[in-house]
Every structure is written in structure tokens, then in C-alpha cells.
């Protein structure tokens, strides 16, 4: 079985978000870039499967749409345990553009399971996995919280509104994954970091793709007013305020 994981490069989740150029651009000066947390969990699960199933998992490939600057993130994925990587050399402008680039790069290759994160910690499009699946005319299953392979069959749990379903899925398909697929991301070991330097990273030229959306301006949320404090002794007053003033309870 061949597994592909789509990874994107996002600001570290502890980043304080700021904008520049009249709020038209993200201020990147203090940003640390990381693998999108959902994608990192997807990769972790693929590595866990390879560790338990051995040769049955023929290869783990990661693919990223990004400029040369995203290569440290790709190398980190290789250090975690991916076997090889593909980088589509394009600025990831918006979801449809990225999904199109991925589909173009993937369609001539052969994968059984393509993993994508449910959401991304930057623009929260929650969209690239599904769009790519449609462009590839491939089935997709969304919000997967567990993925197992037994005797060549793929079993998944997916969260739906109001419950969890256990499913058997035929390959090939796009698995859009969320928290639960793995718990803690795999930390690269020194040996992995050394090996990552020589693992294949193929750079492919971008396809001609349209953008359907454009973020024209950003704004930060309104600052909150001061917090009104109460003590253990006057919890009753708080309840009174919530009931009579705020009318919330």
C-alpha cells in the first residue's frame, strides 16, 4: 500500500498574529513555520502503520505546494519518517489553487490512501482535501478519527454530527483526518534528521491554475473590555449579573 500525505506550512500555533501593509498582508517577521498540526497527525499515523505493518506499507510520500522556503518543513516530515517528498513549486495562494496543483501532481502517480488534514491553522479553509478529491474524481471521507489496516482492508472511524461511524473503505480514497487519528505528533530522532538530508525531494513545476478567492484585507478582533471580577464569597452576585443584566441564564 502506498500512502501520500498532503502537508502545508503554517505559523506556529502560539504565534501572535499581526498584519502589515495596511492590514493587507500577514506580518511574517516573527513567525516560526511548522507542519500544519492536522497534517502532522496524519503523517504520524502513516508512520505508525508502517512501524506495525512493515513492508505492507510500500512507501510514505509527502507533498507540499510551496516555494523553496517551505523545504525546512518538508525536511522535518522526512525526518519524522516519510520516505520521499514532492514539492510543487508555487506560492500557495488560495485553497482551489492549491487543490488544483496537488491534483495535477498526483493524477499521474499511484497512491492507495491520500491523507489530508481536516483544517489548516492559517486561513482555516478546511477545504483543500475535499477539493483535491473532487478534482481527482476520487472518493473522500471526512473527519476521520481512526484508521487501521487489517489483511489489506481499510477500517476507519469518522465523526459525523451526533456520533461516530465505523466504516470499511475501498481504496483508493482521500482520507481527511482530524484529532484522534494520532494523539501526539512523532518527534524526529537524530538518526531521522540525518537521514532526511539524503531522502529524495522532487520539485515539480506548477500547473496553470485559477484562483477563485482572494483575501483582500484582514482585521484583528475588537479588544475585550476589562474583566469584571468576583470572589469565592460573592458568586451569588455573579449569578445575579448573568441573570438580570446579561440575561444569559
Amino acid at each position, binding site marked *: 500500500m502506498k500512502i501520500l500525505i498532503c502537508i502545508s506550512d503554517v505559523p506556529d*500555533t502560539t504565534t501572535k498574529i499581526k498584519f502589515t501593509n495596511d492590514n493587507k498582508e500577514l506580518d511574517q517577521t516573527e513567525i516560526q513555520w511548522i507542519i500544519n498540526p492536522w497534517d502532522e497527525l496524519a503523517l504520524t499515523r502513516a508512520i505508525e502503520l508502517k512501524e506495525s505493518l512493515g513492508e505492507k506499507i510500500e512507501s510514505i510520500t509527502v507533498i507540499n505546494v510551496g516555494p523553496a522556503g517551505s523545504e525546512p518543513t518538508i525536511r522535518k516530515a522526512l525526518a519524522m519518517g516519510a520516505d520521499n517528498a514532492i514539492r510543487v513549486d508555487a506560492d500557495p495562494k488560495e485553497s482551489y489553487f492549491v487543490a488544483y496543483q496537488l491534483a495535477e501532481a498526483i493524477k499521474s502517480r499511484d497512491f492507495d490512501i491520500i491523507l489530508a488534514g481536516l483544517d489548516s491553522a492559517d486561513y*482555516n479553509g478546511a477545504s483543500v482535501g475535499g477539493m483535491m478529491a473532487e478534482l481527482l474524481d476520487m472518493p473522500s*471521507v471526512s473527519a476521520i478519527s481512526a484508521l487501521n489496516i487489517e489483511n489489506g482492508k481499510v477500517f476507519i472511524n469518522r465523526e459525523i*454530527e451526533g456520533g461516530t*461511524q*465505523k466504516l470499511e473503505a475501498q481504496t483508493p480514497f482521500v482520507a481527511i483526518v482530524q484529532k484522534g487519528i494520532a494523539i501526539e505528533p512523532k518527534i524526529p530522532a537524530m538518526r531521522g534528521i540525518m537521514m532526511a538530508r539524503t531522502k529524495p525531494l522532487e520539485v515539480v513545476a506548477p500547473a496553470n491554475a485559477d484562483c477563485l478567492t482572494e483575501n483582500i484585507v484582514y482585521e484583528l478582533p475588537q479588544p475585550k473590555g476589562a*474583566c469584571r471580577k468576583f470572589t469565592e464569597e460573592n*458568586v451569588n452576585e455573579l*449569578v445575579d449579573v448573568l441573570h438580570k443584566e446579561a440575561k444569559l441564564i
Partner: protein
Amino acid sequence: MTLLVYAENREGKFKKATFELLSYAEELAKSINADVIALSVNEISPDELNKLGHYGAKKVVSVTDEKFALLDNKLYTSMIANLVEKENAEIIIFPDNLTGRALAPRLSAKLKAGLVSGVVSAPSSYDPFVIKKKVFTGKAFADVKVSSAIKVLTLSQNSFGIKDPSGDTPQIEDFKAEAVSEKSNIKLLSVDKITGKLLLTDAEIVVSGGRGMRGPENWNMIEELADVLGAATACTRPVSDEGWRPHDEHVGQTGKIIAPVLYIACGISGAIQHIGGISSSKVIVAINKDPDAPIFEVADYGVLGDFKNVLPELTKAIKEIKGS
């Protein structure tokens, strides 16, 4: 021209989020002089379908074919795309939840229609089409311009509100989607339903606990408070990672993003990743014994104290109000 709303039901009843979606769609429809059509999938009673009209749908399209009994993203997308074409829909609106996130991106790619997910208000302009959405997990907003003729939106919950159900009885029409002939790649083995419990993403009030709760044995206090308030329960990432609570309760950057009317945070220090998941809450109440906890910076009301003393007091005082 029409607006198409995906009207989701839970166990045969339409959700509040669906009524909010219709209220929102009607507002947009007024601005562009269009009609709202609601799409309902699976067998639903006529009384329930009529409700969609009361909240703004002129017409309800009902799909009851067996092949859509199980949510298959690809099949559903083909069916919805057929309907979009048939009804000449220009804006298609989904809830910003697991279902919307499963379907909206596929539909967007199929129709080559720009997708904006997690929108928080009506468009600020229709030509060009510009609309506001959350980005960086609630840490900021973006105004997004959509250049395609057809637009797909997912609406962030509790961002618009529900109008009075004063609309007329809708026209109800069956839709067979005969053009969809492919087979699903998934087979359902079993379902674990959350029954009798308020869904976190549907709840107006949420009571949530962090590592400051010290252990799962103290969660009965959270549950009792949630009980008297008719609230859902939630937790932070460390709590679900430790296995004190199930993963589906994890709220924050990599968990669920929620926007309740009232969020009560107990023993939660307020890490930036957690704040991202709750910052759209209308009112935040924080209970923490550390006066420097960052949660107080985003809270509207705070109680400085130990949860073991505060929570039972809070529950008792609320019970008194509810009883009176």
C-alpha cells in the same frame, strides 16, 4: 436566480443551526432579489419540512432515495451539483460543521465556485462579492473577495441569529437525482450515536474544564453545573490528551471551534490555542485561582477562587434562580 441551503437534520428533526442558515439565506436573498430553496436529505415528516418554510425557504427539495442514506461525500456532491444546475442556484450555503466541511469543498471544486468557509456575516458587497470569515483560528478576520459566478459558503454557528418563524408553508418537491449512479466506496459497520446529550457545537451554553480541574474525578461538578444550565460540556487539549475526557469534547485550535452565547471556563489558564477555539463566544466567564491567568484577559466575568468552592456555589445559586 436562487440560494440553496443545505438543511441538516438530526434524527429527523431540523437543527437550530439549520434555522439560522435559513434566516441568513433569506437576508441575502432579499438583497439580490432571489428565492431560498432548502435541500433536505432522508425521510422527514411533512410538519418538519414545513418548518423550513417558516424560517425562510420558498421551496423545499426533499431527497429520500436509499442511496443517500449514508453520507458519501462524492455521491452527495454529485446530487447537490445536479440540483444547483436545475434550480439555477448562485449561492449555496452549508453549516460550518462536520457535514458542511465534508461537502462544501467538493462542491466548490466540482462547480469551480469559490468557497468561503466559516463566514461570520452577510456579504459587505455583492458586486464584487466580498464577505468576512474567521482566519488563524479566531485570532483574526479576513474580507474575502470571490470572483466566480457561483459561490459556496459555510456559515459559522451563532454568528447571525434566528429570525421569527413567520414565513409561509413552502412548496415541497421530491428530487430523485437519477443522474447519480456511482457506487459508494464506504460500507457502514456500526454507529456510535451520541444520544440524549446536547452536542457541543449546537449548545448555547458550554461549561468547560482544563487541567486546573486536577483530575477526571472532579468532572461531576462541571456536569452538575452544565445540567442546571442545559449546557454542553467541553475541555482543553491537555485534558483530552490525558484521557480525562473524550476527544470530541476538545475545544481549541486543533479541536472544535465553538461560538456559544455563554462559555464558562473552569481551571483553564487560557493558552493561546484554547482561546482561538472560544474567542467567538458572546460572553466568557472564567473561574481560576491564579489572578494572572491569561484567561482573565479574554473573559467578561471572572471568579478568583478554587473551583471546588466556586462550582457548587454557582450550581446552587443558578438552581435557585431556575426554581423561582
